[in-house]
């Protein structure tokens, strides 16, 4: 306990804004990403392993039929890795914050946990994009396939598609706040994303309202057929945007009310 610096004049503090909050949250996520890359590398390796099993195993079983639909499979798998990354990172992250006691601490701050969670969600999406792009490139090299990757179109459609999954992640995180141990079971939900990604949107148009389904269809058109963002109909884009915002808002509301219920029951910080 030394007081060596006590006599020096000190500058006056300035209030923090949402800009400072965003910078703090994004920087923290960045630091953890670069300092502890094992999780990201592990995720990439596991994703590629399963794709290898799918591709080489499928070739043995389906032969030419698989090759003809390979582009669609790669796009679907790319979207699935994005979705799993966004969903599990958000829901698991909320569970971890509960376990550490840091979620409780955010409750008593001027900003609260809501904007922190949203900024974290953005960071998770960026991070997931980076790792999923590596997986995508590896899949293309592995199979010798080419896709139309126009960055603005791909990023916009894939980003909006997984925003709806982010909403599911918040909802799962909220349920984890209330019922702690259920979090591990909710991770199984990510296998349901396969169904959503391959939903029959043309035969059953209502499935476009489900998370991922419409985005998956648009991403197939963008990456396989080369359709650009501005070439989609306004309805398609509006629906994609509506589904993304709707599920994100719905998921966040579930999280908000679950947190409030946990405070009512006194179980917010219990683990």
């Amino acid at each position, binding site marked *: 306990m030394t007081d060596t610096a006590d006599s020096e004049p000190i500058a006056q503090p300035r209030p923090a804004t949402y800009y400072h909050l965003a910078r703090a949250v994004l920087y923290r996520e960045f630091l953890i990403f670069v300092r502890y890359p094992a999780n990201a590398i592990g995720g990439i390796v596991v994703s590629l392993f399963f794709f290898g099993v799918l591709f080489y195993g499928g070739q043995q079983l389906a032969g030419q039929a698989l090759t003809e639909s390979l582009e669609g499979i790669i796009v679907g798998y790319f979207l699935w890795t994005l979705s799993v990354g966004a969903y599990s990172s958000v829901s698991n992250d909320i569970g971890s914050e509960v376990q550490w006691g840091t979620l409780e601490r955010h409750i008593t701050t001027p900003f609260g946990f809501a904007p922190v969670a949203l900024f974290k969600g953005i960071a998770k999406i960026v991070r997931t994009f980076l790792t999923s792009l590596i997986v995508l490139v590896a899949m293309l090299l592995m199979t010798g396939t080419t896709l139309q990757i126009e960055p603005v179109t791909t990023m916009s459609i894939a980003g909006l598609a997984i925003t709806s999954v982010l909403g599911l992640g918040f909802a799962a995180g909220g349920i984890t706040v209330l019922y702690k141990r259920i979090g591990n079971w909710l991770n199984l939900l990510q296998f349901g994303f396969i169904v959503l990604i391959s939903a029959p949107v043309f035969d059953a148009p209502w499935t476009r309202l489900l998370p991922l389904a419409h985005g998956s269809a648009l991403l197939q058109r963008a990456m396989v057929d080369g359709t650009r963002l501005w070439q989609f109909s306004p309805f398609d884009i509006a629906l994609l945007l509506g589904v993304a915002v709707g599920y994100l808002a719905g998921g966040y509301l579930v999280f908000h009310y679950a947190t409030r219920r946990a405070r009512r029951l006194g179980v*917010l910080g219990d683990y």
Partner: protein
Amino acid sequence: MGDATSTGQQSVERSREESPSAVSTEDDTFDVLGEANTAAIGEQALVVDGVSKRFGGGDNEIVAVDDVSFTVEQGAVVGLLGPNGAGKTTLIKSILGMVLPDEGSVEIFGTDASDGRRGAYVDVDAMLEGARNDYWRLTVRENLRYFATISGVDPDSVTDRHDRLLNRLGLADHADTAVRNLSRGMKQKVSLASVLAGGAKLIFLDEPTLGLDVESSRTLRTELTRLAREEGLTIFVSSHNMAVIEDVCDRVIVMSAGQIVADGTVEELLGIANRNAIQVTSADIDDRLLSRLEATFTLLSVETVDGSRRVELEATGENLYTLMDTLRDAGVTIEQLHTVEPDLEDVFVSLTGDTQGLRGERSQ
């Protein structure tokens, strides 16, 4: 984002302006990190009015906090004592909004917590029992910057204050070390530092010395005492550790079964025990003499120390002469004789009837 940024800034600034503790100058608002707190002692930092919290329902209903009311003046250091299950943690969490009370209200620096939670808690932070409280994968300094930001302070504007805080808590040499690589005691200090990083004026500490070794516990107590005395922080500390309460607190609230059973200064509470005990140590005290003593006095304890018997009994005034006569008649050679002052543990036991909850804590 532009609107949100502007709104957020206004919100935080407004909250700070609304706080009575921040009315005089902008400087006063953050002085906990380096300058004396100029807030006048006597203004109320915390008003708890009729707070109740029940868990469960029907036959299984548990009343964790039962109609609790008290006030805490700015600059005061208040200890919260009580056996396990007395409702201490629930009360603190109810004050902090982490648990929603069923009844009652909480006012912090003049702002009703239920009306403007964000505004009410702008000058408040807490270090809770069992919680990691900070991010172990970040360094000590990164934690301070992060928690300063979420507390509403631009971290770039308090870098020198954080340096000072790190110096004072003996963390300067570990500023760039990931918290996960520090000892338990150091982690506890990082928790305290991160609680102070944003310039909180009212801090809640729930079992701050839990799990610490004797030396770390003593260091933390010393630092808490210094923060309270020199920087005028308002501290609300819950602990089983009597040394923490006696060393640091001006005032002690004792809870039992969800209710406040005593509230006063340490001296006032010590008066409750009013034990007036005498401790006699001699190798000549045998069972026969013990029986005679027991017939005349209230025996508080009997123990054998290095072959001698140490007897603690109640004896005051005329009784003291009777005790001496009894010992002389029995031919006892007294090795040691002294009065025993009551301590907080005696008060605690007499108020709550709890004799187990404090075992093992006094040595800290």
